C-alpha cells in the first residue's frame, strides 16, 4: 500500500503518446509543476489535455504547447498564451471550450461513477449544439458525459504514503475532482508524510483514488496577477 514513487520522471514514465490527461490547477494556481516538467523532458506527444486553463507562454501547460506536445485542449478559458493562439489559428492545435462548472462536474461524475450529468450551463448557446436537452421542473438542462482520462496529474499541499491528499486555499480548485477522475492518478505534493500523520477527518482526497504519489520539488508557484494594496 505504499504508493510513493521516487520523482516526477518515474511517476509519468508510462504515459504514452496520444494519452488523455487531466491536469489540475486554475490559471497557474495549484498546477502539477513537477509532472509538467517531466512530461516536457520526456517529450511525449499528441496529448489531449483536460485542464481549466492552458498555462502561460513560459509556464504550466504552455511549456508543453511550446514543444508541440499537445494535440487537443479541453478547457474553459485559454487566454494569456500567444503560442497557444498561434497553434490554434494555424490548425496545429484543437480546442474544445466548455463551461467551467461543466468541466468540474464532468470530473466529479467520473469520480463518482455517474455516467452523465444534467446541467443548465450552455442551454440555448453554441455549447448545446448536438447535445441532448431535457426539461426538469420547467427548466432546460444539457446532458453532459463524464470524462474519461487515462491519467490525472494533480498537485496537493500535503499527502501521505497511502495517497491521501490535503489541498491548500484556492490551489484546491480542480485537483480533488481530477484526482477522483483519472484511471491512473498521479499526485505531487509539497510535503509527503507517513500514513497516520494526516487527520482522517480533514483529508480532501481519500487515497483510494490516488495511484502514485511523490514529493515534489522546486515549486515556483508563479502569480499571474499580482494585485496588492499599500500598507
Amino acid at each position, binding site marked *: 500500500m505504499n504508493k510513493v514513487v521516487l520523482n516526477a520522471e518515474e511517476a509519468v514514465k508510462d504515459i504514452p503518446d496520444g494519452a488523455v490527461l487531466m491536469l489540475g490547477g486554475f490559471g497557474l*494556481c495549484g498546477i502539477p509543476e513537477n509532472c509538467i516538467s517531466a512530461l516536457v523532458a520526456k517529450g511525449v506527444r499528441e496529448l489531449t489535455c483536460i485542464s481549466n486553463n492552458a498555462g502561460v507562454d513560459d509556464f504550466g501547460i504552455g511549456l508543453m504547447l511550446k514543444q508541440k506536445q499537445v494535440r487537443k485542449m479541453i478547457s474553459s478559458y485559454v487566454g494569456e498564451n500567444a503560442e497557444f493562439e498561434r497553434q490554434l489559428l494555424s490548425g496545429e492545435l484543437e480546442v474544445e471550450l466548455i463551461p467551467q462548472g*461543466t468541466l468540474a*462536474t464532468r470530473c466529479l461524475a467520473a469520480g463518482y461513477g455517474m455516467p452523465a450529468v444534467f446541467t443548465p450551463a450552455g442551454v440555448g448557446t453554441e455549447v448545446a449544439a448536438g447535445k441532448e436537452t431535457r426539461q426538469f421542473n420547467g427548466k432546460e438542462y444539457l446532458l453532459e458525459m463524464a470524462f474519461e482520462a487515462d491519467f490525472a496529474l494533480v498537485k496537493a499541499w500535503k499527502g501521505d504514503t497511502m495517497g491521501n491528499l490535503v489541498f491548500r486555499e484556492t490551489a484546491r480548485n480542480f*485537483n480533488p475532482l481530477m484526482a477522483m477522475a483519472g484511471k491512473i492518478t498521479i499526485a505531487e505534493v509539497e510535503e509527503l508524510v507517513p500514513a497516520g500523520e494526516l487527520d482522517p477527518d480533514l483529508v480532501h482526497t481519500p487515497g483510494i483514488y490516488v495511484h502514485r504519489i511523490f514529493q515534489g520539488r522546486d515549486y515556483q508557484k508563479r502569480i499571474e496577477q499580482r494585485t496588492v494594496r499599500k500598507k
Partner: protein
Amino acid sequence: MALTKEQIAARIARELREGYYVNLGIGIPTLVANYIPPGMQVVLQSENGLLGMGPFPFEGEEDPDLINAGKQTITTVPGSVFFDSAMSFGMIRAGKVDLTVLGAMEVSDSGDIANWKIPGKMVKGMGGAMDLVASARNIVVAMMHTNPKGESKLLPACTLPLTGVRCVRKVVSDLAVLDITGDGFVLRERAPGVSVEEIREKTAGRLVIPGDVPEIQV
C-alpha cells in the same frame, strides 16, 4: 451626465441586502465590492473555490495559493471557506448565490446575454460565465448602454454568440437602470440629467416607460 463605472458599481451595490452571498464578475462588477454599505455583511463568492473573499493583500503578503476567479491575489475574511470547483458550481447551480453581477457585450429585451465571444477574434473561452448565467437566481448586468460607435447594446436580440438565454433580471448601464420583464426593458431610473428620450434613442430593444422615471441617486 452618464454614470462613471464607479457610479454604476455604487448603484448596483444598492441591490445588496444583509447576508447576501454574491458573485462579482470581472470589470465593473468587481468594483461593487467597494460600495458595500458600512455595517452590511455580504459574502463574496469566487467561483474558483472561495466564500468570503477579502481585499487585495498588503504588498509583500501575496499568497500564490490564494487567488480569485480573475487570477488576482486576494485575502480571506473571518468565516471564509475553501472548496473545490464542483462544489463551487454546485452551490451556484443550486441557487444558493443570492446575486450575480456580470459584464456584458449585449443584452436582449428578453434577458439573453452575450459576453464571451466575438466572431473573428481569438476566442478565449467562457470560463464560468455560462454556468453563472444559467444558474443564478438573480443576475444584474453592469454595462455601457452603447458601444464606442454609439450603437445600442440593449437589443431586441443579441447578434453575438449567446452566453445564456432569458436570464438577466436587471441592467445597470451608464444611462439607466432597467428591469427585464416579460415586456422587455422596463426603465426604472435614469442617470442624472439624462432624458428618457435619450435612453429611448439608445435602446434598440423593446423599452417600457412606466410613467415617471426618477433619477438615479448618485
